[in-house]
């Protein structure tokens, strides 16, 4: 017991306090799934809002114009970059998930496919982002 008494005198360092346990250290497969979930939920909420604002045109064209007008701000422009980024990742990773499920080669090489998805995402975003931001900030 003296050992446990001595132990209580030294305050535990914050690093040791992880009440929920450590974060599971999954690899490419797990992080691609996490990203797929996050982007999927984000796209769902965007679509929900987008359907509602488009439906406004049936209520009154003025209200529709007012709402769409608020989208023409630089902050929304940056939001569009995030939206396109989420959709591009979700699309490419969706193809990867389908291949992993149906093609034995892809199941074995899912890590390579994940990095191909990331590569394609970077290429698409490098093409899209500058062009889009020039449009956003030149108006």
């Amino acid at each position, binding site marked *: 017991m003296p050992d446990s008494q001595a132990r209580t005198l030294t305050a*535990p360092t914050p690093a*040791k*306090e*992880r*009440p929920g*346990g*450590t*974060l*599971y*250290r*999954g*690899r*490419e*497969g*797990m992080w*691609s*799934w996490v990203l797929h979930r996050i982007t999927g939920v984000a796209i769902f909420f965007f679509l929900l809002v987008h359907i509602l604002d488009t439906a406004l045109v049936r209520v009154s064209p003025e209200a529709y114009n007012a709402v769409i007008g608020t989208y023409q701000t630089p902050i929304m422009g940056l939001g569009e970059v995030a939206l396109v980024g989420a959709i591009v990742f979700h699309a490419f990773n969706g193809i990867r*998930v389908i291949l*992993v*499920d*149906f093609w*034995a080669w892809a*199941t*074995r090489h*899912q890590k390579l496919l994940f990095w191909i998805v990331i590569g394609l995402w970077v290429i698409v975003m490098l093409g899209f982002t500058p062009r889009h931001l020039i449009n956003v900030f030149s108006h």
Partner: protein
Amino acid sequence: MSTATLEQPPAEAAPIESFTVTFLIRRFDPDVDTEPRWQDFDVEMYPTDRVLDALHKIKWEQDGSLTFRRSCAHGICGSDAMRINGRNRLACKTLIKDLDISKPIYVEAIKGLPLEKDLIVDMEPFFASYREVQPFLQPKTAAAPGKERVQSVAERARFDDTTKCILCAACTSSCPVFWTDGQYFGPAAIVNAHRFIFDSRDDEAKVRLDILNDKEGVWRCRTTFNCTEACPRGIEVTKAIAEVKQAVMRGKP
């Protein structure tokens, strides 16, 4: 060639260096604690020692109340699956030299099963899923008297990978779907179903495919590959699950 003789006394072997390794173990005593807590232990270890040896040293020399399961201690019985530095491993197959000992080594119970004490979880939900997939041979016809059921090398190779399972639960408790949905059969049960679904001597594949063609069956798999990374026997778990998914769609193995 002449017989090799000992001409010189062998040079004295360099003493193997030992290191002080810090272990942070997530402990839980249901009689005292309401929440699990981390406790640190310094253990003198050789690089060739395993994490299980460290747990033994702690239990035998420092704190006899440390509780964990182990039986064979050689990677066959599947008793000592635990989360070591955030990954599911067998304590008896994880060498100290393969871990970064400049930092503490985190050891905690596997996730997703009810914690009972220290590193021990209740395995019953895990075995219940295993039993549900009927993991035993069910041939419709009797073998010829005095003969075994003949199987070609190719037929045996079809399910060879999934025969290696030791039911340690490292895969099932590494699955993010299983953590949040304890009803999911889990990778281990599907692996053991795969072992009989694709066995040419078995005739009840259809029954198992029906069991797994369920909301909580193979379709819960989101291909995170945590199970494949965690398997101490190197079974390609996610690939086996994908094969079962395809068999369900075909309606036959």
